[in-house]
């Protein structure tokens, strides 16, 4: 289920998604080892770290249960047995402010936590870093390249790249 949720959050498009990047294994490892990735707590000691980690683990597991309880209530079946449109609809109610429903607070918190783990788990892999174009994958450069737009210092007239998967929304002038 974790693998499926992760792939829903960061799916495959022109680059691999969370599943191929091993995000589910990462989440399982981090949750099992009680390593939270949401940075709301001030960690000042190992006890703090363990408390935060225990809390993350408990909330994560409870959150998965919540998803199933919600989908049983809405659709009469476990989350993984629902149709994709049903799964999507359930997630959207947790993810988009405009679609929030009352009493789903802990589901929304779980969605944020699941998303935090997924984003972290994806963008700390070679697949994820390549998909976003992280320049630091190259570790030796002859010099630091500067701005490539010397005749447009305000960068007001940049061409939108033709690469698929990038939004074609025009930039403001």
């Amino acid at each position, binding site marked *: 289920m974790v693998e499926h949720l992760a792939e*829903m959050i*960061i*799916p495959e*498009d022109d680059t691999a*998604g969370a599943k191929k990047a091993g995000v589910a294994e990462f989440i399982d490892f*981090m949750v099992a*080892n009680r*390593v939270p*990735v949401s940075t709301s707590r001030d*960690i*000042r*000691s*190992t006890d703090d*770290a*363990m408390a935060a980690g225990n809390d993350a683990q408990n909330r994560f597991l409870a959150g998965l249960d919540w998803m199933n309880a919600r989908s049983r209530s809405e659709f009469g079946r476990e989350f993984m047995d629902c149709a994709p449109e049903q799964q*999507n609809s359930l997630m959207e109610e947790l*993810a*988009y*402010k405009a679609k929030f429903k009352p009493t789903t607070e802990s589901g929304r918190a779980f*969605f944020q936590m699941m*998303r935090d783990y997924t*984003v*972290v*788990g994806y*963008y*700390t892999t*070679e697949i994820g*870093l390549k998909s*976003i*174009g*992280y*320049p*630091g*994958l*190259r*570790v*030796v*450069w*002859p*010099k*630091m*390249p*500067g*701005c*490539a*737009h010397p005749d447009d*210092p*305000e*960068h*007001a007239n*940049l061409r939108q*790249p033709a*690469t698929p*998967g*990038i*939004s074609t*929304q025009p*930039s*403001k*002038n």
Partner: protein
Amino acid sequence: MYDAIVVGTGAGGGTAMKILCEAGLKVCAINSGPRTDPENDYRNHRQVYDLKYRGYGDPLRLKGKAHQEPYSVEESEYSEGRDLFEHDIAYSNAPGTDWYWKRCKATGGKANFWGRSSARFGDIDFKAADLDGVGENWPVDYAEISPWFSKAERYMGVASTIQNRPSNPDGEYLPPMAFRCIDYIIQKGAEKIGVPYLPDRCAQLTTDHNHHPACHYCGNCSRGCDVGSFFSPTWFTIPEAEATKNLTLLTNSLVRSVLVDESGTAKGVAYVDRATRKEVEVYAKVVVLAASCVETAHIMLNSKSHHWPTGIANSSGQLGRNLCEHLYGSPGYGYLPRLLGQPATPDNIADSTVAWMPRWQNLKNPREEKFVRGYSVYMGGGCGEFPGYYGQIEGFGPGFKRDLKRYYATTIGALIQAPTLPSPTNYVDIDPEKKDTFGIPQLRFHFQWGPNELLMWEHSKQVMIDLFKAMGGELWGVDDQPNRPGTSLHETGVCRFGNDSKTSVTNKWAQTHDVPNLYICDASIFPNCTDKTTTMPIVAFTMRTCDHMLNNFKKGVHKRA
């Protein structure tokens, strides 16, 4: 018996040991922690996916330590288990104080990982008290220190441009780093609101320098340079000192106090051998303390004798007092819509500040603003190691993933660097009850932000609103509090230098007024912080102090061992 003991091997201690050894003195350098070993201690081109916890670190890694708080930035999973950072020696915060004391105990200290911002102080800093009546003047002026800044820059290698601004005097520079797209956009916006945006003075080698290679832009600087392309004692001063054969370097040796003879003169130091836990005494004709600002004061406060009942060289009562720091925080962060969808650019491969907004306040008139003195703002952004802005984007799925990529090149962040003024509420002393694991009385911090720096903080938030508007940017937010005091790693003040022995601990040569053979070569001598950082000045003032000390040896003021 040595000619000189140098306590600490960082920007100051490392420089002192090199100069004294090269002059033929027999030097014993004593370092708190282990020897730094770049091959095994640094990031060395690893990527985050090479780490077991992807950078989050083993949550149990500090279990059982006296000081279990993890340090941000420089201490990371890349150096986990390498014992570079101090977790065995605890410290105290007085009630209401929340000082965050990050300590690197390995040879080279914080200067192994420093931010490399290296601006010169000017008379606007040295003579600030003349201008606004607050605090004490420094006992030096720019004309006499400028040649030492030049020496430091020539030795270290600093990249920048000539800017003709007396508040940020020009030095001897390597070619600057190239401006990125975001720099041009920020600069245009800053210009519109009358704020300078200029290359920082960055101690990173843009060309080969002396025998050190030019930077190859792996972006790993904050986790140690694998080849020595920026100044650090590990790559520069320590090997040079060792090459003279005049150096004895003790590691894992925690200095506890300065020892004095019957006349109250320094005769050596006592340290604890961390391995055997035994106390050992070492003797020398001259003692140099460079243990890092507050640790130097800690050692001196713990050096009590019937001559020095409140700590060695403390007849002024100013030892440990006048603790100053940089207020750090983000006064605004957001993104540039005009860059949405642009391909990734190598914005952060230098892991450094390319350009900043150097203090532009109170330059003509010291009381133009509601606050006195001034602050600088480091700007950054662009494509980084992790899309930390993802919280600004709602949702999940293909649109979310696409938006994460769309925004990647657009983000802009800011960091204020605002100096605190000396205050009676801000000082270090010895905890009356707590002792560390070796039985050494702990250092205790007393610190509150004062009104002047908080006014600067408020001012900077409005500047960010104006700047983002001028850039056509969108602000996402601002820190609701400054970072904890101590975060900047630029504290000063606790052994301040001055001409008056009643109000200062050290004289203009960084010799303590009371004990002429006790010298200090770290930031504790600086009476206050400025809008600029302390590391290059530490190197410059250390070079000058050692020059004076060597003259004193020549003149017979100090005798050889």
